[in-house]
């Protein structure tokens, strides 16, 4: 028991935080019952929290990426400020505009409203990972074809939200597109183009899948 405790401490003092080693630490203490072990229990409990800067590994666009963050660092800030992945944009930073939309575990989420440490172990997809360098994903191509952007700042978020929508519902109706894209705001007002782009992308993808 005590040797396990020691190894947990080592892991943390080295800041070599990884989900696996940390979870191993978290398991300690749960089995400790009865009198005389309160101190150990308290010790183990300390091991279960992380604070200050820690190194985590994020699975970003299919590649493991090591990054140092604090627990309070949002996924968006980790992507933009630490991993040089600046496609997702920081606008409202309160989960209401959609410019930071990324796909985590197959679902569209607001990167500003998720902690980076909470994204450990999940597949994170950003606009950078949609298509190989120099090529356009069908959704991006449909945005170009339909003039679905003006200033373009909201576009990466819109494209990721569109992709998540089409992954889930390959042939959406106009109403389903409107509801499915409700979490993204464009202040230039390109919604007409976006609506057309999503419907065209659905056709393009349907064609390529058939």
């Amino acid at each position, binding site marked *: 028991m005590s040797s396990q405790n020691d190894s947990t401490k080592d892991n943390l003092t080295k800041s070599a935080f990884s989900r696996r080693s*940390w*979870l191993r630490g*978290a*398991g300690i*203490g*749960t089995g400790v019952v009865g009198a005389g072990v309160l101190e150990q*229990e308290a010790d183990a*409990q300390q091991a*279960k*929290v*992380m*604070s*200050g800067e820690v190194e985590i590994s994020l699975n970003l666009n299919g590649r493991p990426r090591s990054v140092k963050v*604090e*627990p*309070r660092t*949002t996924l968006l800030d980790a992507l933009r400020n630490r991993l040089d992945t600046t496609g997702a944009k920081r606008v409202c*930073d*309160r*989960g*209401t505009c*959609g410019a930071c*939309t990324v796909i985590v575990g197959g*679902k*569209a*989420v*607001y990167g*500003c*409203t*998720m*902690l980076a*440490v*909470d994204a450990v172990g999940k597949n994170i997809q950003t606009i950078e990972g949609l298509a190989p360098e120099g090529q356009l994903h069908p959704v991006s191509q449909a945005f170009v074809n339909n003039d679905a952007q003006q200033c373009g700042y909201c576009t990466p978020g819109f494209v990721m*939200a569109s992709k*998540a*929508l089409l992954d889930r519902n390959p042939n959406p109706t106009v109403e389903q597109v*409107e*509801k*499915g894209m*409700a*979490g*993204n*705001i464009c202040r230039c007002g390109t919604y007409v183009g976006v609506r057309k782009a999503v419907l065209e992308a659905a056709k393009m993808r349907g064609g390529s899948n058939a």
Partner: protein
Amino acid sequence: MQAFEYGNPTTLKDAFGLLGSNWSDAEILAGGTDILSLMKDYITSPKRVVNIKGIKELGGIARKGGNVRIGATVTLDDLASNAVIRASFPSLTQAALGVASPQIRNMGTVAGDLCQRPRCWYYRRGFGLLAKGPNGEMLVPNGENKYHAIFSSGPAYFVSASTLGPALVALGASVTIASASGNRSVPVEKFFVSPSGDGQREIDLKPNEIVTEILIPAPATKNATYEIRERELLDWPLTAVSVALRLSGSTVNSASIALGHVAPTIWRASQAEKMLVGKTITAETAEAAGEAAVANATPLSQNAYKLKLTKVAVKRALLQAAGVKA
């Protein structure tokens, strides 16, 4: 956002060990859609944040005895797309689908919807839940109260932010709350409280407790939710009405009518409920129920418009639940 310690327990027991006796000690993180914004705005700055999403027993939707059990960390998206819920409790599916946006529904959780803090702009600007000015004056009655309560005699005038609350109250659901010393069960209706003093919360939850599940009794009701917003999408309801009817043929045996976004708690329209017993739901009786639902309202200087909206929402929810075309 202030720095904090982060815990990611995988068992309830470990989670209890990480919570504190004060709200400033620790806050719970599940979907994060509310707590992170509150922390960014320094409305709350806990020393520790405890992520409960790794606790497996808090997930899942399943039949349990005579109830349907919804785990605390089930996302609103999983709730909205669940076939069991859709078949028996369409009012809850409708409410879940009405929440904000796909992104929020993918992240936000069922218990988080109940535990989220009010959207009152005075509260969100740091004036506290009771919205008091520097000299202790009540800011809401003489201030910007367009989105505030129409059922409150004070001192709290914010409206409950919960979207699932009205449906769960109308369906007679309860929450199970766990702590190191055991479990307790609270009707969802009683879970919401109108704070009367500073430092009180608007829900019946202590800092060392965790909502673990929601239980909805299964007996068949006809139920529906009707919400009215300024914008159709990505907005909070101005008023929300959920009804559950027990019918014999077309005669109402009992009616539950719960109103959201009009009071610091989920508000039962008991007069309207009583007057429907023994009646058939028609455009006329539904209209009368709507009138009765707002008869005792005490609107503030800028929100009398909510009376009409609520009246209409009650009528439409009743007609929808009974399957009557007006």
